[in-house]
């Protein structure tokens, strides 16, 4: 590749690279730096107008890590993330496998399921708030009708079930995307593999675990990783459904950070919390890259 690899071309590609890189430095790297600085200060509504803000060292971090609310919120974050990803993935995978089969109107069904993907989290949260209403919600009605429950469950107002309610909504929102990513992986597997396997006497379970999963494990890992990155960030869906309540039952790290910054106006505390969340995501990413990264070449 003489023309692509030569020095002149490479110089031009650096120019191609620059706009996007500068953009990311401005709007992504700068916020990180700013937030780190903010987390070492004490900025609240009371002194936001002051020209100089006091530096207080690690106080904010000490406060966040010793906050009695922290363990519960970390558990919530974990429950929300794991619960969402496990079911989004499982349901998405099941649908993807099913929609690989040939039958009439298959593509139409795939499109219909993708409708969930285009709806914004705010709309989905609103719909589910109504679906989960204690007295008039459709879900309670359906569950009573098929005989799973005798009395209505107060999904969102009850600390024990609120997280389940929020997770349900998030699963619903995430299924189509998981399905599409996995369909992408499955599409690369030629039919002949399965035919040969059937002949070898492998039953469906064996086929699935011995052939399908190993062959698309890269896609699976990527899907789950993307799931983690995007589920850890979820804010709007929870905010519109429960505001993080009752009490703190559905408060995850992003909700906690938002509440600190924009309800209580403790900007530095909010920044500290979001930095901790970012660090958590980074650790996960490092684990991912360690196991699955750098195999592209």
């Amino acid at each position, binding site marked *: 590749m003489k023309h692509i690899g030569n020095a002149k071309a490479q110089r031009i590609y650096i120019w191609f690279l620059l*706009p996007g890189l500068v953009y990311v430095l401005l*709007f992504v790297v700068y916020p990180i730096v700013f*937030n780190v600085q903010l987390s070492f200060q004490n900025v609240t509504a009371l002194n936001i107008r002051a020209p100089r803000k006091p530096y207080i060292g690690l106080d904010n971090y000490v406060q966040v890590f010793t906050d009695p609310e922290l363990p519960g919120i970390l558990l919530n974050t974990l429950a929300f993330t794991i619960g969402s990803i496990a079911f989004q993935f499982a349901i998405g995978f099941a649908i993807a496998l099913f929609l690989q089969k040939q039958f009439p109107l298959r593509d139409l069904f795939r499109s219909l399921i993708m409708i969930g993907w285009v*709806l*914004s989290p705010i709309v989905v949260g609103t719909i589910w708030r109504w679906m989960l209403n204690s007295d008039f919600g459709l879900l309670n009605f359906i569950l009573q009708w098929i005989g799973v429950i005798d009395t209505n469950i107060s999904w969102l107002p009850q600390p024990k079930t609120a997280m389940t309610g929020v997770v349900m909504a998030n699963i619903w929102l995430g299924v189509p995307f998981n399905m*599409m*990513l996995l369909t992408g992986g499955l*599409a690369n597997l030629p039919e002949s593999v399965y035919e040969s396997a059937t002949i070898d006497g492998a039953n469906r379970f064996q086929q699935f675990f011995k052939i399908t999963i190993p062959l698309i494990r890269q896609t699976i890992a990527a899907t789950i990783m993307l799931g983690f990155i995007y589920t850890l960030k979820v804010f709007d869906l929870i905010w519109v459904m429960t505001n993080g309540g009752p009490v703190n039952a559905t408060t995850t790290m992003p909700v906690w950070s938002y509440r600190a910054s924009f309800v209580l106006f403790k900007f530095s505390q909010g920044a500290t919390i979001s930095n901790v969340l970012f660090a958590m995501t980074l650790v996960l990413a490092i684990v991912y890259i360690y196991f699955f990264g750098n195999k592209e070449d």
Partner: protein
Amino acid sequence: MHAGTRKEFSQFQHKTTAGKKIKTGLRHYLAISTKKKKIVKLVVALIATGTYLIPVLWMYISSFKTERDVYSLPPTLIPNPVTFDPIVQTLSSGGIRYFFNSMVIGSFSTFLTLILAAFTGFALARLKKRWVSMIVLVFLIAQMLPTVLRVTPLFIVFNNLRLINTYAAVILANASLTIPFSVILLRTTFLATPQEIEEASLIDGCSHIKSFFLISVPMGKPGLAVAGAMSFVWSFGDFIFSLSFLNKPSMHPATVGLYNFIGAEATSWNNVMAFAGLTALPLILLFLIFQKQIIQGLSTGSFR
């Protein structure tokens, strides 16, 4: 396909070529039972899709109910009586304006993302430097940055740039989420497109810019379609940036409009559902129009 996977696959094929003879018989058996099986599958798909879409259907059913009907027990499956009041009320309370704002924010964010990410993603696919993987890592990390972390710093930045209360603030903020994602995706796309044609065009004296637009971009279309669709859906659904950077109701997108509407409309769930349904409808229609391209793009496995 991934190189490692390809290797495993060919080994696998090699192992199983022995059973070729039985295969024909099997095909025959499959052909007889296919029709029945197809119908069973159709029914299963119908039930599954129907179940999945219950929330959306319920949203639209509720929008045609009167206030009394929406609170009746057991819930009525068909509105009784059917009323258009909630929809009329949504339209008269500025539903169209909100939709327009969402479209502006969604399309400009997408446009900005596609332009910048296409160049950067392409460059990262063609540059043969050691530091390329470092830059890729920067974009990967950028993708992980929590949205709430960006709000305060970006507010300060946009304030200094005098951009608060302009669509630009929200567009630039949205692009800070969608660009990293799209760069990674488009780099993968352009790594997979054949370089021979680009090379040939350059030999023919084509400029790099021209070659990029006439040769590389068309070849990267599936990836660009996905990046575009994702960017649009995300920016269209943005809530927190619009809430924080726009304080004029006339500029609010549908998400913020809906959020405020819930607060103002008390518990009139028929009106709230009508608002939600109306603002979601154009997006659903847009998706159904472009579904082929989007699904094709998404299912070519550009994510790895």
